[in-house]
């Protein structure tokens, strides 16, 4: 058990900069997820933490001690690979036992047949077997231990790979997209199980995924990576409701956050077509900002000046919710809103009005940086009405 500190890691392959000076402090016992689109450098970062890839500069500190120049075997980490990387010629039990046999027995004691005759081997092997069955109990895989990987299903192999990582009580677990080879149902199930396992083991987890749902459901904190940089590190709630960058806002959440262009009016208020919001930004009038809101933030409403009008182009009934695609009069691309099932009566081509509560609106500048949304409380409105 230990925290992992990543300090100014740089890595390039040829002329491509894969990691551009990444720093991240992962606390002891934290479940940290590195999430981002493919090619963002998250897997490379994990492999650098593991020691399977050498960084060009920077350091990895594990439990406060510099480990950046140590080889993988000396970093006291365990890794679960996307392909599981189980040894196909060994039984599940032998696979799980391997990290222990490698560490507790010397090369002579590991020899087949002869090794068993050497003094001390039997006692160590006994201890290893006990540890393996302890892990097998936790993962409920006792009945699979004598099988070879080829005789196991994807989910079962996944558990064996987890067992191999757990058996040694490492300083931290590294997981490289461990669920991406499973079918959708099993993946959801394993999400819960991994989160529970994390609570049970009280160990640091560093988890790499491109699936924002996995990141949201399991993590203590999420680090959103893009183009070799970490854009934001925060708890899932904060990432979702308070993203610092439009790319973060767009990556997290499904369906994607809606973005419409808004102009700064002459009185400083924001306007989307005919809809005027009691919000302002610190930009002079005439500037265009990006106004973003989550699909579930919009309500059907036609009563106020802040209502954005549009036409329904498509509806998806998910049973629990209704997703409605709306072509706003004032925006080039359609927005998607999530409505409760009682709105099922809406039809394509219906004209509707959307109202987004002010506190649910996120503003970004043209470069995608977050802008503070300042309330504009009827300052210019004549008080006497």
């Amino acid at each position: 058990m230990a925290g992992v500190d990543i300090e100014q890691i740089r890595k390039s392959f040829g002329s491509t900069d894969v990691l551009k000076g990444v720093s991240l402090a992962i606390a002891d016992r934290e479940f940290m997820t590195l999430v981002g689109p493919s090619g963002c450098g998250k897997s490379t970062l994990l492999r650098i933490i593991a020691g399977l890839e050498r960084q060009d500069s920077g350091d990895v500190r594990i439990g406060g001690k510099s480990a950046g120049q140590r080889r993988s075997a000396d970093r006291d980490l365990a890794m679960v690979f996307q392909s599981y990387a189980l040894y196909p010629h060994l039984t599940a039990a032998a696979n799980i036992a391997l990290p222990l046999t490698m560490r507790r027995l010397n090369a002579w004691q590991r020899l087949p047949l002869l090794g068993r005759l050497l003094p001390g081997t039997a006692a160590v092997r006994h201890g290893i077997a006990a540890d393996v069955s302890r892990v097998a109990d936790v993962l409920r895989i006792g009945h699979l231990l004598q099988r070879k990987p080829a005789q196991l299903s994807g989910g079962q192999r996944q558990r064996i790979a987890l067992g191999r990582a757990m058996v040694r009580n490492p300083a931290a677990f590294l997981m490289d997209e461990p669920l991406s080879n499973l079918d959708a149902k099993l993946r959801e199930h394993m999400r819960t199980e991994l989160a529970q396992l994390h609570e049970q083991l009280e160990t640091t987890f560093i988890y790499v995924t491109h699936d924002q749902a996995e990141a949201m459901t399991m993590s203590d904190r999420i680090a959103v990576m893009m183009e070799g940089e970490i854009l934001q590190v925060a708890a899932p709630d904060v990432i979702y409701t308070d993203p610092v960058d439009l790319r973060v806002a767009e990556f997290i959440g499904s369906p994607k956050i809606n973005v419409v262009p808004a102009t700064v009016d002459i009185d400083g208020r924001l306007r989307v077509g005919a809809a005027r919001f009691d919000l302002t930004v610190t930009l002079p009038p005439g500037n265009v900002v990006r106004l973003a809101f989550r699909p579930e933030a919009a309500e059907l409403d036609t009563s106020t000046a802040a209502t954005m009008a549009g036409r329904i182009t498509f509806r998806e009934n998910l049973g629990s919710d209704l997703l409605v695609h709306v072509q706003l009069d004032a925006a080039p691309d359609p927005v998607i809103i999530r409505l409760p099932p009682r709105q099922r009566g809406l039809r394509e081509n219906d004209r509707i009005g959307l109202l987004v509560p002010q506190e649910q609106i996120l503003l970004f500048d043209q470069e995608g940086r977050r802008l503070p949304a300042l309330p504009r409380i009827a300052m210019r409105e004549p008080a006497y009405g």
Partner: protein
Amino acid sequence: MADAALTYRPVHPVFATRGSTMPYLLAGPAFLLMLALLIGPVLVVLLLSFTDYQLGAPAFGFIGIDNYRELAGERVFWKSLGNTLAYVGVVVPGAVALGLGAALLIESGRSWRAFYRAIYFVPVMATLIAMAIAWEFMLHPQFGLINLTMKAIGLTPQNWLNEPNLALWVLATIGIWQGFGFNMVLFMAGLVSIPRHLYEAAEMDGARTAWDRFCLITWPMLGPVTMFVVVISAIRSFQVFDTVHALTKGGPVKATEVLLYTMYAEGFEFLRSGYAAAVTVVFLVFVLILTAIKARVLDRRVHYG
């Protein structure tokens, strides 16, 4: 699961009726060719081994197992069989170990891979009879490169091919030299197919040394290739003939007499075809045993899906 899929293959109407001649018609040409080119000749040899036929003789008679009886009593035959087994016993481990070693070294290096691969493969492609002549020059007792080198560094020169205690081992060395490039190529193909993730997992699991990684991953994962390579090498070295014929003619004092050379000498020099056929049958029995082992083990699969 694949089996289940296979049993559901729809049956073409032509094959649907039992006793239809269509399957036999389709399989016929291949079967006839096999009969004419493979099974037929072997059967003829088998028959011949029970006769006293001599090459070119107008008539022959069946003499039962007399040829085999003579074989069993013949000192040269036993010498020849022993030499062949000794040759196989040296060449197979040598060519397999060197092939694996070369493959590992070439795979672990970054540069010049294609060059080394080609260099080691040259002896496999070259005609052994031509190479044998080169070896003959190198091994020449007076002006051979090897003896000159040994003299230069102060070692006693040897009469390589005329020394009864040495000749067979010299031939075995040439056999290894000739064969290991082929094994190397097979091992390299096997090495490439080992998933890289396994080595990374091994590193994480604490396999620190190259030896650990070899024992844990490389060797087990090469199991099927190794089996294949061993059997192929064994069959090829059972067939050793050209170096013997070109370099020693079975001498000195039968020290390099091997099965195929005995067969050749009996059949084509002494024209005792029936007797030569009996030697051939013995040879075929060994090859058949090896083939059976290969089929058995490879079918049972030394590998892991």
